[in-house]
């Protein structure tokens, strides 16, 4: 079972370490973790993707709430949230491969943001499954480097908002 945790924490040094440490110490999985400042400069927002049994997923929420630097924990499934991830891909290519790569990019709305006659960097900001789709389609080429942000998530707009 997968679960997304959106954790608002005090924007202080060492807090990321405390939260990540909690996961490793209690043997919880981190599938991905992103962190950044919010509209309030004293607050950072962490998006943590985790998987485990329902019992473990409930414990994660409780243990996160117990941390004194944690302001708020929201938890939701992937369906309940808008999820985005950014990927950067560096590919080494030959001239006869270029056309196909460009077609894949066009198909998935990925962007070629840098290129030489032998290398190019592709980027895509999309849902995690579309990112996986891109990866599966370009895997046959010579991928030199991959960098991913991990999932960013925000619960969908509710009626009461």
């Amino acid at each position, binding site marked *: 079972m997968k679960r997304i945790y959106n954790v608002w924490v005090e924007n202080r040094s060492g807090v990321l370490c405390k939260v990540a440490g909690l996961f490793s*110490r209690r043997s919880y999985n981190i599938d991905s973790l992103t962190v950044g400042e919010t509209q309030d400069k004293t607050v950072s927002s962490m998006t943590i993707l985790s998987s485990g049994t329902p019992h473990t997923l*409930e*414990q994660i929420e*409780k243990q996160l709430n117990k*941390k004194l630097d*944690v302001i708020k924990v929201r938890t939701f499934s992937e369906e309940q949230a808008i999820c985005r991830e950014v990927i950067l891909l560096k590919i080494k290519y030959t001239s006869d491969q270029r056309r196909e790569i460009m077609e894949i990019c066009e198909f998935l709305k990925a962007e070629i943001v840098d290129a030489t006659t032998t290398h190019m960097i592709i980027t895509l900001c999309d849902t995690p499954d579309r990112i996986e789709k891109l990866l599966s389609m370009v895997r046959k080429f010579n991928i030199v480097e991959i960098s991913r942000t991990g999932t960013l998530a925000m619960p969908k707009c509710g009626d009461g908002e």
Partner: protein
Amino acid sequence: MNGANLLTKALEQEGVRYVFGYPGVSICPFFDALKDSGINPVLMRTEQSAGHAANGYARAAGEVGVCAVSSGPGATNLITAIATAFADSIPIVCITGQVPTEQIGSDMFQEADIIGAAESFVKYSYSVRTAKDIPRIVKEAFHIASTGRKGPVLIDLPVDVQNNEGGAFAPVGNVNLRTYKPTMKGHAVQIKKVLKVLEESKRPILCVGGGVISSKAGEKVTAFAEKYNLPVVSTMMGIGVMRSDHPLYMGMVGNNGKKYANKAMNESDLLIMVGARVADRAVSQPDLITKDKILVHIDIDPAEIGKNAGPSIPIVGDAGLIFDELNKADLKCDFKDWTEQLIRYSKTRDEKQQSTAKYVDPNLLVKTVSELLDENGIYVADVGQNQIYSASNYICKGGKYFTSGGMGTMGYSLPAAIGAHFADPDAQIVCAIGDGALQMVLSELSKLAEIGPDIKIILMDNRSLGMIREYQHYHYENRYTMVDLGAVPDYSLIAKAYGIPYRRIKNNKELNALEAVFNEKGPYLVEVNVDSDAFTAY
């Protein structure tokens, strides 16, 4: 005012009377500032003992205990004591000196990242960067340590911050932390549910843990039990909530507990756990406990509820406040018949006894010692076989009982007993310890000799590391390894070297000599010869 003076002033404001510690260059400004204050520094013989002494002080006084040590090895030596306090939810504030702010991260002499190293054992930690922040940080640290689920808070204080000017001291008002608002009051709907299931139940039982002691709710819980003739059992950390001779008290549960206490818990149809973790030592199969009974779990820490067993009715809050509410109700139920049935059963069980003429029976020893101990005396048990013998045979007459329950830290008892003495100087204290653990903290005999407290060390001497020896007997077919203490010292000479009165008890007949030991005020080392083949479980 410099940082060290601000710290001292802030501690005075919290009512601190003693700081247990060990010096080093990085904490010198603070100890120097203490000289001009009303706070007494207590020099222990190693940093770990300073932490345990603060722990013993906190438990005996019902207040926050404070310890202060230096940077590097001083700080790392403290970690075991921090973890011990964390596991038992004991409120202590630990102050560690640190290398100058500018040098942090440069691996200079006696630098250790104590904040990082202790992270998983503290309730919270502060790395102080500005002297003027000290009063606020101290106020917050005491608030965090002593509220909600209590525990250790660490303040790491670079030496330059102690020396820097931080302005005049101004008392800090109420603490308001946006990330920390523990639930104290139990949810009214949940409380009603508990009363309803109690009314409907046939065989209810209360199981009390350390949380009841921590919230000072013993009398309220007892009153509730008495109102409906509810039988009560306790975990190891809950020993002392009820007097042993209370007709409703069935004793300790768990794999080392009383058989009839376990039977009572197993046969109940409603189990009300209060301030206990439903952990492996108290309940053999926590996940199966709700199979045939309703489990009510009352705890201040929401993360404990459902961690080991999914309760039918969870209540988050302070045990004292919750029982205030529960006591307001007037239910028409009485469980006298069920309780009497349990009492009748308990009387059919034979008492544990090690029958040997050559040695002292440790079960009988603990009974004798706790009978001789003053009514309000404090019994501190160490870790190992002595802990099990103590927990299963200690007779509570209204006094306090401490042990390292969660972490099981050997060498806890003597420094914790010393800390307890500072909290309650008139209290008679028993330190029950094995010969393995005593050799770990032998240095504290020097502290004992220095201050002469009324601490009776009951040394269960079996010339081996008994608990592990027992484990190897049952699980490794008597392939004993690493458990023979070999060249044990002559404890009479050890006692003489420190100037502490000494007596040796070789067999059950000689146990009556203990009366003279307890009639004399002051420290005593009583060496009790125990059979290395005597096992706690059989």
